[in-house]
């Protein structure tokens, strides 16, 4: 059945053009996301009897989940990781860089490039580089650095595992915060600053009364994007610690992987995935509503 009018044919053409992209996203993202819900109600497994013939177990996976200390541990670790690296680490250093680069300093392009460099490094290489930084023994790079301040050599990834991955992710994400916040800063009208100066405002007053309030929409956008992307991290932490030692860096993504493909419990892994999906979808819906995204 071919549409007849010119306009109808054009609309038909648009739908046709959308199709390949929609099919791929449906097959590999939307359908699997929905499928996770039904898998989470089964005892599906990678090995053994349940792998051949999985059966419906109702909410048993969720009952187990909410009483599993490892799951709560994973949620806690994820929360600390997101707050420590995205909300605090990247934001503070990124904002500091953005503000400082607004001042009349030389070599801006070079500082800019240096701060951007970590952002381009592939996940596996990030892990590789930082394992060397954190290497234990007196020849480890970080140990040599802290030795200047009289600190004994540490086993960083064992003694401070969560702090270590927070530092690594902060390192990786300063650039993102800096670039986004710089674009926010440059959209603040300059007359505001000039007027404030004429009225005799100090730098500190200008920051708290003008810059920060004017930056709120950008800061909100940054917080949303960085929370969502940090929540989805896997490779960066997995290559560094694989969730260890003793589950201390087992963020949600790694917990899903370990439960599903190390402990072979696909149904249970899917239940954890459902929690993760629900959290990120709630964030997404809140965001779309709050920003009234322009289309």
């Amino acid at each position, binding site marked *: 059945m071919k549409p007849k009018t010119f306009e109808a044919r054009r609309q038909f053409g*648009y739908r046709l*053009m959308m199709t390949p*992209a929609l099919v*791929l*996203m449906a*097959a*590999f993202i*939307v359908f*699997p996301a929905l*499928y*996770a819900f039904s898998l989470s109600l089964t005892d599906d497994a990678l090995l053994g009897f349940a792998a051949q013939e999985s059966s419906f177990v109702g909410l048993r996976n969720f009952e187990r989940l909410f009483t599993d200390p490892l799951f709560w541990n994973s949620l806690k670790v994820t929360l600390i990781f997101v707050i420590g690296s995205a909300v605090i680490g990247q934001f503070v250093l990124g904002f*500091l*860089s953005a503000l400082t*680069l*607004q*001042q*009349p300093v030389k070599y*801006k392009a070079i*500082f*800019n*490039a*240096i*701060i*951007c*460099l970590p952002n*381009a490094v*592939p996940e*596996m290489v990030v892990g590789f*580089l930082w394992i*060397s*930084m954190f290497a234990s*023994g007196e*020849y480890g*790079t970080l140990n040599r650095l802290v030795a200047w301040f009289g600190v004994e050599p540490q086993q960083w990834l064992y003694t401070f595992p969560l702090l270590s991955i927070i530092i690594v992710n902060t390192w990786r994400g*300063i650039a993102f915060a800096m*670039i986004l916040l*710089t*674009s926010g800063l440059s959209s*603040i009208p300059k007359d505001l600053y000039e007027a404030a*100066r004429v009225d005799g405002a100090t*730098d500190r007053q200008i920051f708290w009364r003008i810059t920060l309030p004017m930056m709120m929409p950008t800061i909100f*956008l940054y917080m949303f994007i960085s929370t969502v992307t940090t929540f*989805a991290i896997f*490779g960066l932490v*997995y290559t560094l610690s694989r969730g260890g030692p003793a589950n201390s860096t087992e963020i949600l*993504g*790694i917990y899903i*992987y370990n439960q*599903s493909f190390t402990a072979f419990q*696909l149904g249970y892994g899917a239940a954890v*995935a459902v929690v*993760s*999906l629900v959290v*990120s*979808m709630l964030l997404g819906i809140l*965001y*779309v509503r709050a*920003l009234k995204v*322009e*289309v």
Partner: protein
Amino acid sequence: MVSLVREAPMDTCVSGQQAQRRAYVTLVLISLFCLAPFFWVLLAAFDPKASQFLRLPDSLTLAHFHNLLTNESGVRWIMNSVVIIGSATVLTLIFAGLGGYALSRTQAWWKRPLLYAIILVRIVPPPALIVPVYKVMLTLNGWMHGFITGLTDDAALQTTLLRMFSFVDGYLGLILIYTALQLPLAIWIMKTFFDAIPKDYEEAAALDGASQWQTLRYVLIPLALPGFAAAGLFAFINAWGDFLMPLMFTSSPELQTLPLGMFRAFLRVDAIDYGFLTALAVIYTLPAVIAFAFARRFLTQTFSGGVKG
């Protein structure tokens, strides 16, 4: 690298040298933090006695790079990565170009809901998908195997075809999943760029007797070129740096991409060749850094997925 930083709004009121000095100290400290992990990899890659520890080499050598580029597995990992990520990037560009154009031009009722839905699809965390996607891939893989083994009896040809078109432990699966994961952002970018091209151009071309294809080829694609550059660079950087998908879907050593090959070589705790691995890390990182240098200027326009904050 292009600097986005505009001239300072505060330069009328520099509160003297002290503020200036404080600015430099801040920038130098942050830069040192950013650079610190790179010293080791850059030195060790040229150090004949490379180890896990940072040291100044006694002499410099290119042996590790030579070794890597003549070593069969090193070359294979690079080729696998290039083929898989390259194909995924090209597919992303084609599908996002079509989809972004349609979404920009259509006035249908589904336009707005679809654009919101694409934002939501974009923030689905990949680790949450691994279990169901694994099941989907296994099913597709079963079909594909049935199809290929039915197609030919030639064992060698079968092996080659299986390698290329398998969903699990093959090229096609990774290519398609990377394409799917990069599409939401790419579509938003393309839609935003097509929005900026006035419809009049197309209509003028049509009035001059250009066919639909000619309009596309000579008017739309050239005008949307920056959009394609941005979408392609981001798709490439994201997929190139990913570690999760090869970990999930590759088992044969011949099909390993750079991140997985590196990871597995690094796991052999008793026999880690640091010279080989650091050289590999340098080669693996370089394309991403170059792509990022070009992508940098598009970053502010596109992070929110075309979302204006």
